[in-house]
């Protein structure tokens, strides 16, 4: 029995070596397909991070009414801080505003005008970690409802667009991944079928000798498993390389500072899924092939 098992495993390995061409091509195709899906997974994992980056850069400026006292402003700012979706809110007093203006425009308005025309304001940063999209309009409305506010300025459309499109994209990910997995299965099925066709003679012989279904199918399943393991070995460095390369490009060619990351846990789960799919579809394809002639 043990000899039989060793024999079958060795057969699976020999199958690969005997048909180097087919094995190479199926390895290649499987790798491409695994790579693509992995990249989708990485993209999905990192969109959140990119969004956080954008949210982090995004500022809302709140200008208070002219007659407000510093004390009241402080209490209003602490109210703003409690609004859902707000990360920080920093009070900018009249003096601070003057200093900032001087830094930015190199012009001392106080000296020129004799008084400080700049209002008390606050800079509001958005929460980075919220998983659901941030509803800017809602936050603005909440801020305004705090009271004593002259006007609220925000860069507006860009982050709104990004949040909206991210949600739209997120809804489509399941379809995209489903589609890719379908292609994956098609590829594996086609590969196994090619492999079966090229071993028609062997399969026919085994059937005539009275081999059981398991005996005939096991080597093909082992072949499928080995090929998927090889493609994991092949794809993983490629994945790491792509992510690093992308980060390098982003760092060097754009003002964008976020770095994407490879989450090995999700990749591992995905690999496991590929394995299961391979085994199942090898089995199905091979056994449907056996049925052609009872």
């Amino acid at each position, binding site marked *: 029995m043990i000899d039989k098992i060793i024999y079958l495993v060795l057969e699976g390995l020999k199958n690969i070596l005997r048909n180097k061409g087919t094995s190479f091509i199926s390895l290649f195709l499987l790798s491409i397909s695994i790579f693509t899906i992995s990249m989708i997974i990485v993209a999905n994992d990192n969109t959140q991070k990119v969004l956080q980056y954008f949210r982090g850069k995004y500022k809302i400026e709140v200008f208070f009414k002219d007659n407000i006292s510093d004390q009241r402003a402080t209490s209003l700012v602490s109210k703003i801080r409690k609004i859902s979706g707000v990360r920080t809110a920093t009070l900018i007093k009249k003096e601070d505003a003057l200093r900032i203006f001087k830094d930015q425009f190199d012009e001392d308005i106080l000296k020129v005008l004799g008084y400080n025309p700049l209002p008390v304001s606050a800079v509001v940063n958005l929460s980075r970690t919220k998983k659901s999209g941030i509803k800017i309009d809602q936050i603005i409305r909440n801020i305004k409802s705090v009271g004593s506010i002259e006007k609220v300025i925000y860069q507006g459309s860009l982050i709104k667009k990004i949040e909206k499109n991210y949600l739209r994209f997120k809804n489509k990910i399941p379809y995209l991944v489903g589609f890719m997995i379908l292609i994956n299965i098609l590829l594996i099925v086609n590969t196994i079928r090619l492999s079966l066709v090229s071993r028609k003679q062997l399969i026919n012989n085994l059937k005539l000798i*009275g081999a059981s279904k398991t005996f005939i199918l096991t080597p093909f399943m082992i072949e499928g498993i080995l090929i998927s393991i090889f493609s994991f070995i092949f794809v993983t460095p490629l994945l790491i390389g792509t992510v690093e390369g992308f980060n390098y490009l982003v760092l060097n060619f754009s003002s964008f500072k976020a770095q994407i990351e490879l989450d090995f846990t999700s990749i591992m789960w995905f690999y496991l899924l590929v394995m299961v799919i391979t085994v199942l579809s090898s089995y199905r394809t091979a056994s449907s092939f056996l049925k052609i002639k009872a």
Partner: protein
Amino acid sequence: MIEFKDISFSYKKGKGVTNLNLKLGDGEFNFLIGPTGSGKTTLMRLIYFDLVPDSGTLIVNGFKSKNLSFSKTSKVRKEIGMVFQDYKLLNDRNVYDNISLPLYVLGYPKNQIYDRVDESLELVGLQNKKHHFPDELSGGEQQRASLARAIIKEPSLILADEPTGNLDPVASFELVRLLETINETGTTILMATHNYSLIKGRGLPIYEIKDGTLKQR
């Protein structure tokens, strides 16, 4: 035991066998003769369940050739050793691997397989061709390798389809002698052949098939 009751079968493109009635008892040695294209191979394929009869009842070693499943077919075939007319050797394996295959299927341990292969190669006289691939054998040697593969698992039934077609008279004679020896240990044998002079005068039953119908000679 093999029993044909009113068996008819025809291929999609026509021709086949009609109304076969035949009973081969356990341990018997029967010959099947008939002109080319008369249905000898068709009859054998019916026995190892490669073809399913259109009508009639066919029983092989207690299994009915009806509602065949994969496992039923494979059970029947495990008990049968076949020498195919076209040998059906695997071109990408050497003689040793070809002949040992049935033993792996049956789950023999490796050391036993090795001994058995040697033994049966000696029986057919191919001991020094163990590492040749089929296309490195002469026609007759391929035929004998096919015989070795059939007898190695000591089946209860041997079907030999024209096993002497590429053998010279001496080798043919020896082959029949070998089958007779195997038959003496209780193995049922059915051998199809064109070589009437080889089989006559042995006192063994000879069936003749002509245009798909059978009669005893």
